[in-house]
């Protein structure tokens, strides 16, 4: 019968404390740390306000006038409709782009042949200016929802596929040896080793892709739409309603932050922080 030597137990104890101690050393400092982003926001709004005093409202409206326009648009229900329209393009686009990233990323990570065959296209795809190519999609698929979802999916695809490949390849060789020595089947190796090992990477890709999905949806709406935040911004531009344009941009930013936050929540629910060594 063996027990832990005292030096080992002590070391473990110290490690345990260190792990727990890192996130927030004192409550007061933690509160202060949480206030810093708010302070940044406050400074931003103040600078904006001061700048807006020097220009006419159709060039740079102040925060108050943008807030008023925002409230009007919320009150008459149109902002909600536009936002939901844009989301109905961005979210399916994000899902489609993610599925495509897995469909191509898995074979590339697992097989040399697929890597040689497909990787050049994936790298090249990053060089394609999708906003410029989007008109092609309108020719092929019409100006409806499908096209906007596709624009989204194309923009979201790259950061996710790169991370899926990097994640699946990040498995340490010794863990592969371990699974081989335990006679694991390919499916067991995938679900119990490769996929969990890749999760931190996949979530990093989803965080970037999630925010980019809004960019894709807006780009689609700029080209052709009768609804959506992109359409609303275009409309405001045409009418020199600069307050409306800025209100639209801020709405997009808030939704993008919301998507980012949702991905973070999913990451926390899966407790991906355990991976960190």
């Amino acid at each position, binding site marked *: *019968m063996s027990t832990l*030597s005292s030096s080992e137990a002590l070391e473990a104890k110290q490690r345990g404390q260190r792990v727990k101690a890192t996130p927030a050393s004192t409550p007061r400092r933690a509160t202060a740390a949480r206030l810093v982003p708010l302070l940044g926001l406050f400074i931003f709004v103040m600078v904006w306000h001061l700048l807006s005093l020097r220009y006419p409202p159709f060039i740079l409206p102040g925060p108050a006038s943008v807030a008023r326009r925002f409230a009007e648009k919320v009150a008459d229900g149109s902002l909600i409709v536009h936002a939901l329209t844009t989301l109905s393009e961005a979210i399916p686009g994000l899902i489609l782009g993610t599925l495509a990233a897995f469909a191509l990323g898995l074979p590339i990570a697992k097989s040399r042949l697929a890597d040689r065959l497909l990787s050049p296209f994936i790298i090249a795809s990053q060089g394609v200016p999708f906003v410029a190519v989007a008109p092609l999609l309108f020719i092929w698929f019409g100006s409806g929802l499908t096209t906007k979802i596709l624009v989204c999916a194309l923009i979201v695809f790259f950061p996710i596929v790169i991370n899926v490949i990097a994640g699946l390849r990040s498995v*340490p060789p*010794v863990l592969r040896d371990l699974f081989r*020595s*335990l006679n694991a089947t390919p499916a067991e190796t995938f679900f119990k080793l490769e996929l969990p090992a890749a999760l931190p990477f996949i979530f990093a890709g989803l965080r970037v892709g999630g925010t980019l999905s809004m960019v894709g949806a807006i780009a689609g709406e700029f080209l052709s739409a009768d609804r959506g935040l992109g359409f609303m911004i275009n409309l405001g531009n045409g009418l020199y309603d600069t307050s409306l344009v800025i209100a639209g941009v801020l709405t997009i930013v808030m939704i993008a932050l919301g998507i980012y936050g949702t991905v973070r929540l999913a990451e926390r629910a899966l*407790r991906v922080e355990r*991976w960190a060594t």
Partner: protein
Amino acid sequence: MLVADHISHTYATGVEALRDFSLRVPRGQFVTIVGPSGCGKSTLLRVLAGLIRPSAGEVWLDDERITQPSPRIGLMFQDAALLPWRTVEQNIRLPLELGDRAAIASRLGSLPESARDGQFAIDDLIQLVGLSGFEQAYPRELSGGMAQRVSLARALITRPPVLLLDEPFGALDAMTRESLTASVESILRTTRTTAVMVTHSITEAVFLADQIVVCSPRPGRVMGTVQVGLPRPRTWAMESWPEFGALVGRVRALLAHPGHPATS
């Protein structure tokens, strides 16, 4: 009996790692393999584990020819190789979830009633390797020595008759190393496991072994073997015994003045 019969191995890169290496490990014996860095020790262990098919020669465990990993052979690496998203207990349980579960279950089924229940076996094992109270800890919360204890428990959970150890204490500090070496000696004696361990440390080799195999620089060949007659259980107090010192001296002599003329 674990037998390596005239094993030679040359990697695809042209590196000749092993030349005509033979080894016989009677059931329940502890054999340590010492030799200079890059003498093909790790290659030999991977061949014994069925992870590499040698260019020539055969490995036999009793009447089973080993050509691929067998559930009858457990493996411990230099790195603890734990899954960071699993707790200590879940890591130890891993071998029960993979591969030929029927083969594992049938062998576990042949054990006495008390050991058949999986959960009981795990609790027992966690206590045996000295990890009680750390069942729900994650690998990042463990010290290097404790991580290797988890790795040992994981290797033993399927009760393999043979355990292969590839310098499992290489990355640990001296004190942790001593305590783990003593634990391994007592645990493998309790479980009557046949063991082959590769190590750089001559004292460790003497402390653990019934038989020490000294191998030459690449390509690895057997330079000589030393029988260790020290009584078991072993303790570190034996390190000051004259017999212990004599054994260390014989291993050193074999390493310094190989019995065969060097070919390279």
